[in-house]
């Protein structure tokens, strides 16, 4: 059987077809139950080496990738590069070539600069998996969001999804918009115009609109996805204060009431409670935030498995 994933690397959702996305999600489904076993390990990637190369601090994503690798019996090594490669006098290319010389099968990379996974993929023999590059993409986050949505809504096509918050600087939003529109959902984004410029609609050919207000975006949706407000943005004067943001743009119970009755709420975490999301919403039955974390491991198992040459289920 054909594997769903004909590429060496997973650099972003933008390059993928709907079939490839479905293939990854189906593979993830088949890995789901491993994490609920007593012995959470299968030999699928025994003898393979995965390097988690994180140039940017991360607890969730790095842990999720590490567990995913280990549950598939791969040897996983974590490298955190806290200072920039520039300050050490080593170029990005040097770092990549050095690691590549140790013959890993897969390098999972996170970096604060957009495009780093693409640059590494050109020179590395190992499969490169993008774990978040600057404000560009975070493909595994979009995949785990899709898996969560599929679980609760049994489909993605035809759904209405609202994404709220700092769209401009969000790699999560970009990957999600690409994925959801490729899979036939329609997406509305909203937030202050400084963070949600109107021409953001040009990101994809169709299926995306910039809603005039947060309320317009939420009205009648199946899924409400909230993005984390990065507090440092406040210094850049994108909006005046966090409290003003919470009042005018945050997801409160009242605003959520505009969505469909069975609408679910997603957040990529970590949450700023009381700012972009009210605690009552975060802790409500609508919130599927912990499911997202759970499916994150399954999705990353699938991605590592496919990227190192595994085949999708028939």
């Amino acid at each position, binding site marked *: 059987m054909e594997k769903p994933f004909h590429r060496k690397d997973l650099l972003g959702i*933008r390059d993928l077809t709907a079939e490839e996305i479905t293939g990854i999600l189906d593979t993830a489904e088949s890995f789901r139950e491993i994490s609920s076993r007593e012995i959470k390990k299968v030999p699928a990637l025994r003898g393979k080496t995965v390097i988690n190369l994180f140039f940017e601090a991360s607890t969730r994503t790095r842990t999720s990738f590490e567990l995913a690798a280990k549950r598939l019996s791969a040897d996983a090594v974590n490298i955190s590069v806290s200072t*920039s*490669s*520039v300050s050490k006098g080593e*170029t*990005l*290319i*040097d770092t990549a070539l050095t690691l590549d010389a140790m013959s890993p099968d897969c390098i999972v990379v996170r*970096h604060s*600069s*957009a*495009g*780093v996974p*693409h*640059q590494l993929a*050109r020179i590395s023999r190992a499969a490169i998996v993008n774990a978040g*590059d*600057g*404000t*560009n*993409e975070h493909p595994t986050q979009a995949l785990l969001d899709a898996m969560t949505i599929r679980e609760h809504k049994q489909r993605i096509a035809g759904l209405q999804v609202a994404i709220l918050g700092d769209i401009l600087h969000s*790699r999560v939003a*970009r990957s999600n918009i690409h994925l959801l529109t490729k899979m036939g959902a329609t997406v509305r984004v909203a937030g202050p115009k400084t963070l949600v410029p109107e*021409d*953001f609609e*040009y*990101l994809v050919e169709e299926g995306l609109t910039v809603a005039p207000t947060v309320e317009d975006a939420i009205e009648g949706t199946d899924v409400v996805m909230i993005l984390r407000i990065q507090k440092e943005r406040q210094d850049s004067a994108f909006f005046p204060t966090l409290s003003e943001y919470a009042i005018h743009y945050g997801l409160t119970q009242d605003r959520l009431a505009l969505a469909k009755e069975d609408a679910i709420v997603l957040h990529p975490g970590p949450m700023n409670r009381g700012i972009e999301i009210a605690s009552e919403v975060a802790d409500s039955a609508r919130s599927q935030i912990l499911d997202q974390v759970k499916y994150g491991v399954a999705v990353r198992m699938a991605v590592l498995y496919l990227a190192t040459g595994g085949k999708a289920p028939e």
Partner: protein
Amino acid sequence: MKLLIKNGHLIDPAANENTGMNVLVEDGKVVAWLRLSEDGPEDAEVFDASGLLVAPGFIDLHVHLREPGQEHKETIASGCSAAVAGGWTSICPMPNTKPINDNAAITRYMIEQAEHSGLANVFPIGAITKSSDGVELAEMAEMKSAGAVAVSDDGRPVPSAGMMRRAMQYARDHNLPVIDHCEDKSLSAGGVMHEGRVSLLLGLKGMPALAEDIDAVRDLLLARETGAHIHIAHVSTRGTIEAIRQAKKEGVNVTCEVAPHHFTLTDKAVEGYDTNTKMAPPLRSQDHLEAILEAIADGTIDAIATDHAPHHADEKALEYDRAPFGITGLETGVGLAFNELVHKGIIGLERLVELCSANPAKIFGLAGRGTLAPGSVADITVLDPELKWTYDLAVTRSKSRNSPFGGWEFVGAPVATFVAGKHVYSRSK
């Protein structure tokens, strides 16, 4: 010493000539034009230009030579060597050396280094303000006495309109063009490519076209008021072009140049995050490129200048947003002009020579250059408009290889270069 450039087709728009002609050179000057049937003096060395175009030496108004201070990127000698191989007999280096060329000593040093290398002429551009900090005027008049031909703070454009007004008033006093890299940094800060659909798709921070337009409009207003000659560097946006076109109609003393990469590539080239597509101003979208082509065709653009900006490979081998701005261009500028402008029917050969030689000489007031009329300096660029060649970065004469054009195929090239009658370059067959 006598030299006869024989059997070539002379294109000299400044002298209104476009015909087969032999050019006789003696002691570094053009002394006469002879009919093709005339052989000239017997003791003249002969360069056979059969089937080739003979043009006044090309003048690049905008290069970066990195000396003094960053000789690992480029020296004046290596830059001059790349220049003559690219058909440029004169080049004008920007003052962003280390230290900044903001005084006569550095200006003199640059000219001396160029004379020492004996290849291209170097006409330095001095800083507008000391250290290009935008605070105090640099000694423009002293730099001019030392050989500077214009002033600019280059990539650190004078932020204050008040300071720029004063600079224009003072520069006008000394008959120095003020070169303007138009960029309002409050709009472009942190940006690494053109702001538009592609920057959205790539997740890279954009530099809006507006950042260029606003600064251009501000400085055109200042030029109109002060009467200074303002030369707008590397025009890259439709808005700037429209503002210049309008200002020219109103009689403002404005000239402008375009860089070859801006009439060749769009922001789509940034896909793949190759840092050799990163420069300021950035590669713009198709609409801006079309505006540039129109402006080249209708005469709004006065000159082609390469903005040759060498950086060492180690400096470019970085994350896209951390890599320095700039690409090399001396060796590919003329090839790109043939490919994108001449062979696509945007301009004719005469206009090409006007953009690369006649106009640049006028803009910076380089007396005796930009023409091969008898009495002028024998700076000569010989071109083969049909020569097919491939740009091989492995054999570049520049010390840097940061070009997106490695491996590109060209039709049309400079094949020989003469500076003050001295044969300084021949393309190997």
